C-alpha cells in the first residue's frame, strides 16, 4: 500500500519535471540533428514560467475549466496507472480526458482550433485501437489487466508481445505529437493550422496544456516500461534504457519524416495495428 502511495505521489510531483526535461532533451537533440546548437535543456521550464507570468487571456470563459478538467483527468489516469490498477480502465479514462481537450478547443468556435480539434479526434480514433489492444495483449499473456500483476512476471513481456510493442511505439508518434502524425497541434514550424488545437490558448491556459502533455508523455512511457519490467530489479534499468531508446527513435522519426494527410495517418496506424498486433495475437493464441 505504501509503495503504491509513494509511486502515485512520485508521479504527481515528478512527472511534470521528467516530462519537461524529456522535452528539453528532445529540442536539444532535434537541434543537433539539424546542425544547430539548440535551446538549453531547461528551455521548456523557462517557457512554462513565462507563460504563467503573462496576462491571462481567453476567447471563451469555459476554456479554462475544460483544460483544468483535462489535466485533472490526465493526472488521475496516471495515478491509476502508477497505482497499479486496471490498465484497460486507464485507457478508457484517458479517452475521456481527450474529449475534454477537444471541448476546450471547439468551444471557442475559432476556425483554426476547430479544425485542429477535428484532427485531434481523428488522431484519437487512429491510436485508440492500438492502445486498447496493448491492454488486451498484456491480459492475454498474464491473465490480468492489473498493472501490478503485469510487472510481476518472471520474464519481460516484450518477448511474447513484440507485435503489440511495435504497434504501441507506432502510435506513440501520434501521442507525442511527432511528425509524420503531428496533425492537430502543429508543433515546431508546421503552421498551416497556426497552432492547431492550441491556437486560442495563451498564457496560463497554454501552460496547463503543456504540463498535461508532460504528464501524458510520462504515462505513455510508463506503458512502454510495462513491456520490459519483470520481477528482476535490474529490469527497471533496462526499462529506462528502452524508454530512452524509444524516445530517441521518436525524435529521429520526427526529424526525418514529412507529415502525412490525416486520412493516410488513420489508414497507416490501423493497418500497422491490425498487422503487427493482429499477427502477434494470432501466434499467441495458437501457442496457448
Amino acid at each position: 500500500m505504501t509503495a503504491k502511495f509513494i509511486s502515485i505521489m512520485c508521479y504527481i510531483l515528478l512527472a511534470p519535471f521528467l516530462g519537461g526535461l524529456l522535452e528539453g532533451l528532445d529540442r536539444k537533440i532535434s537541434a543537433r540533428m539539424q546542425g544547430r546548437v539548440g535551446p538549453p535543456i531547461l528551455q521548456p521550464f523557462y517557457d512554462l514560467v513565462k507563460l504563467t507570468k503573462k496576462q491571462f487571456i481567453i476567447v471563451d470563459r469555459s476554456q479554462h475549466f475544460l483544460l483544468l478538467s483535462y489535466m485533472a483527468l490526465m493526472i488521475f489516469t496516471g495515478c491509476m496507472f502508477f497505482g497499479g490498477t486496471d490498465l484497460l480502465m486507464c485507457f478508457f479514462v484517458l479517452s475521456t480526458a481527450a474529449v475534454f481537450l477537444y471541448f476546450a478547443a471547439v468551444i471557442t468556435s475559432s476556425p483554426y482550433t476547430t479544425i485542429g480539434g477535428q484532427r485531434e479526434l481523428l488522431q484519437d480514433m487512429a491510436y485508440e485501437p492500438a492502445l486498447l489492444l496493448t491492454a488486451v495483449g498484456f491480459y492475454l499473456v498474464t491473465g490480468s489487466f492489473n498493472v501490478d500483476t503485469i510487472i510481476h512476471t518472471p520474464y519481460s513481456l516484450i518477448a511474447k508481445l513484440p507485435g503489440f510493442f511495435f504497434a504501441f511505439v507506432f502510435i506513440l508518434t501520434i501521442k507525442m505529437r511527432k511528425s509524420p502524425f503531428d496533425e492537430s497541434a502543429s508543433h515546431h514550424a508546421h503552421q498551416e493550422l497556426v497552432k492547431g488545437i492550441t491556437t486560442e490558448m495563451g498564457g496560463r491556459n497554454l501552460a496547463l496544456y503543456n504540463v498535461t502533455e508532460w504528464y501524458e508523455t510520462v504515462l505513455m512511457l510508463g506503458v512502454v516500461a510495462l513491456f520490459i519490467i519483470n520481477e528482476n530489479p535490474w529490469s527497471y534499468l533496462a526499462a529506462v534504457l528502452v524508454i530512452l531508446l524509444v524516445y530517441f527513435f521518436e525524435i529521429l522519426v520526427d526529424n526525418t519524416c514529412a507529415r502525412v494527410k490525416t486520412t493516410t495517418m488513420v489508414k497507416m496506424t490501423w493497418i500497422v495495428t491490425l498487422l503487427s498486433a493482429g499477427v502477434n495475437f494470432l501466434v499467441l493464441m495458437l501457442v496457448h
Partner: protein
Amino acid sequence: MPVIPFLIIFPLVMAGLMFCVRVNKVRNAIAYVGAVVIMIAVGVLIVGWAAGGYRPIELYVHTEIADKVILCAELLLMVQVTFLSFKYKKYWVSILSIVPTLAIAWLELFGPEMQEISHIYIDHLSILMCIIIGVIGSLIVVYAVGYMHGYQHYHTNIGDRRYYFFMVLFAFLGAMFGFVLSDSLLWIDLFWEATSVCSFLLIGYTREPEAIKNSFRALWMNLLGGTALAIGIIYFALTHGTVSLHDMVALGAARPGEVMIPVALIAFAALTKAAQLPFSTWLLGAMVAPTPSSALLHSATMVKAGIYILFRLAPAMSGTTTGIMISFIGGFTFLAASIMAIAQSDGKKVLAMSTISNLGLMVACAGVGRPETIWAGVFLMIFHAISKSLLFQDVGATENSIHSRDIENMHGLLYRLPRLAIFMFIGIAGMFLAPFGMLISKWAALKASVDENNILLVFFIVFGSATTSFYWTKWLGKIIASTNEAPAKDITKRNEMISITIHGVLMIALCVLFPILSKVYVGPLLREMFAISEQTLPTGTLDLLIVLVVFVFAVPFFAYLYSKKIRANKKLSYMSGINTGKNHAFTGSMGQNEKLVLSNYYFKNICGIRKLMLPSQLITAAVITVMMIFIVGGAL
C-alpha cells in the same frame, strides 16, 4: 397474478379506445391516464414478484381459451398483412406471413400432443424488460401527445390520423409485454409478429411513397425473421414435444447438439429484429416515422426484443457454432455501423446508425454467451434504452424548434436552446463517456472475448469503440461551440419536456448508481441464467468504478466553480487578423464581411452508406448463409 393478463390486455383496450375517441383533447387525457396506469401496473408486477422473494415464477399452465384467442389473433394479423400487401401491390410479402402462420396453426390444431408447460415465466430478465417497456413506453406516450400536436401542425400535407398513431402505440406496448412475459414459444411467436406489424404500420404512418416503401422493407425483413422463428418452433415442437423456451435453453445448455437447429433459427430471427447486418436497412428506413415511434419501437424497446431473445438463448449458444455466428455478425455490425455513422450529419440518422451499432455490440455479447458478456450486454441494454429514447425525443423537439435536425445546424445549441441541449448532452455523454454506459460494458466484453479466444470480436470491439467515440464527440463539440446566433424560440410542449426531463434524470441516476445496480440486480440475473454464484466483476474494479464516477462528475464541477473566479481578459479569436470583431465573421478579400461557417468532418466518400452498406451486407449475408448451412448440415 392477475396483473400479468392486465398488462397485456389493458394496452389493447386502450388501443381500441384511442381508435374510437376522435376528439383530440379527450383522447389525450385518456392516453395520459393509460400511461400512468401502465406504469402503476408494472409497479404492482414488481411488488408481486418481489413479495415472492425475487424468485422466478411460472404461471398459467392450463390456458386452452387463451391459446385459441392467440391463434385467432395470429390469423387476424395474417389477414391484415395480406390485405395491406395486396392493397399496395406487394403480393409476395404476404407469403412470408401466410406460410408461417398457417404452419403454426397446423402445429397447434393438428400437431402432436405437447407437454404441459407454464405459459408465463417471470424472472429478473423479464422484469427488467417490463420496467424498460413500462417506464419508457409510458413516458413516450406522454411525449407523443405533445409532439404529434406540433407534428401535425407543421406537416399540413399529412393527414391527421393521430387516433391511429396512438392506437398502434398502445397495441405495441401490449404486444411487447406479452412478448417478454411469455414462455410458450407459440405465444412468443404471436407477440413477435404483432410487434413487427405495429412497426410496419407506424413507419407507413405518413402514407407517403417513401414511407410506404420503407414500411414494406421493414415488414418483409421482420417477417422473414418471423418465418425463421416459426420454423424453429415447429422443428423444436416436433422433435422434443414441447414449446417451452426455458426447456429449450436448459436442453441447449446441457447438450447443445440437440437443439442446434431451433436455436440457430430463433437467433437468426433475432438478428432481423435487432436490425443487424444485412438487415440493417429497415431500421434506417424506419426513421421516416414520427419521432415517438422511432424512439419507442426503433431504438428503446422493439429492437430490444431481438436482444432479449438472444440473452435468453445465450446459455444454449455459448461455445457453439451459432454463438460464433451471432457474435461475428454482432461484432461486425458494431464496427461497420459505427463507421457509417461517421458520415451522417442528419441527427436522426446518426441515432439510427448508432442504434444498429450498439445493438451489434449487445448481439455480440449474447453470442459469446458468458456471464461477463451478458452482464455487459444487460447494462448496454439499460443504458441504451434510456439514452436513445432521450436522444430521439430531444432531437425531435429540437427539430420542431429550429426546423432542422441536421447536426451542422446544432452549432451552439447550448446557447440557443439550452434546455434541450443540456439533455442532449446528458444523453450522449451517458452513452459513451467513461466510465458510464458503453465503456464499462466494453471492458467486460473485451475481457470475455479474450478469454474465449474470439480474436475477431476483440478487433471489432477495439476498432468500433474508436469510431464510436469519433462520431459522438464531434456531435457533442457541435452542441457546445460558442455562437453569436440569437436564441431560438423553444416551443417544446410541457408534456414533451416532462418526458425528456424524467429521462434525463433517469440517465444521470443510472450513471451514478450503476455499480449498485450491478450488485443488487444484474448479479442475481446472471446467477439465475447461468446458475453461478461468483461476482462477475472483480470487486476492485467495481470500487474503482465508483471512484471514477464520482471523479468524472466532481472534476468538471469544481473546475467550473474555480474558473468562475479567475480574472481573465477576453480576446478575439484568431482569424489571421481579419476577425470583424464578434468572432463570427471575417473580412473577405474584397473587403466585405464573410460569415464564418464551421463544419465537422464527415468523410462521406470514404465511409458513407453508399460506399459501405452493400459490401458489409454481402459479407454478413455470406457468413450467415454459410454458417446456417453448416449448422443445419451438422445437426441433421
